[in-house]
């Protein structure tokens, strides 16, 4: 699974992207965020308030219950501020 981080999530976590193999209990977006929070203080800090984190799977917005597959591209980012 490919993870991408943008804006302050990227700067807090310290990397822009990584390939991960989450444990089997990670089946959806909410459980992925729960697992990521355990990967270190930088992740715990960046993801301490999941309600402000937007998630896209394969470049489409999804909700926390969205199921995940091994080959997915999952992006985590704050609310957008373009335009």
């Amino acid at each position: 699974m490919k993870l991408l981080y943008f804006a302050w999530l990227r700067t807090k976590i310290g990397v822009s992207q990584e390939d991960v193999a989450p444990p089997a209990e990670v089946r959806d977006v909410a459980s992925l965020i729960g697992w990521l929070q355990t990967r270190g203080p930088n992740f715990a800090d960046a993801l301490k308030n999941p309600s402000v984190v937007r998630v896209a799977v394969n470049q489409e917005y999804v909700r926390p219950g969205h199921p995940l597959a091994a080959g997915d591209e999952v992006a985590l980012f704050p609310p957008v501020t373009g335009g």
Partner: protein
Amino acid sequence: MAIRVQADDFDIGAELAALTEGDASIGGVTSFIGLVREMGSGPSAMTLEHYPGMTERQLAEIEAEANRRWPLQASLIIHRYGRLEPGDRIVLVATASKHREAAFESCHFLIDWLKTRAPFWKLEETAEGSQWVEAKDSDDAAADKWQQR
């Protein structure tokens, strides 16, 4: 329909002329141009980050939705990324239709939806250092008014 995501500036006159060229059925064009404005304590430059791939995909979906809702002859979205200074152009949205209502309404819709859906983030340069711009509730409210009942 056209989408461009680019670091370079754009020429408004040339873009609008190209949008309508060769289609004499177009009766009106509406355009919106977003600029970097000075914030609070004075001029501040910013860097626009985006998600290559998803940006183009989301802009194309937004544009397709405008074309479903209004009878448009042509539409164009150009959005820049990278470092921009006060006064620089950020975004151009333009819509062309036979009649003005469709052009006005669809252009307004496009910029409101773009602001809450297109994956761009502004990093402002301030006296205290660089700061990520916070999303505004007023932008969500502006986009919500276009939800179809």
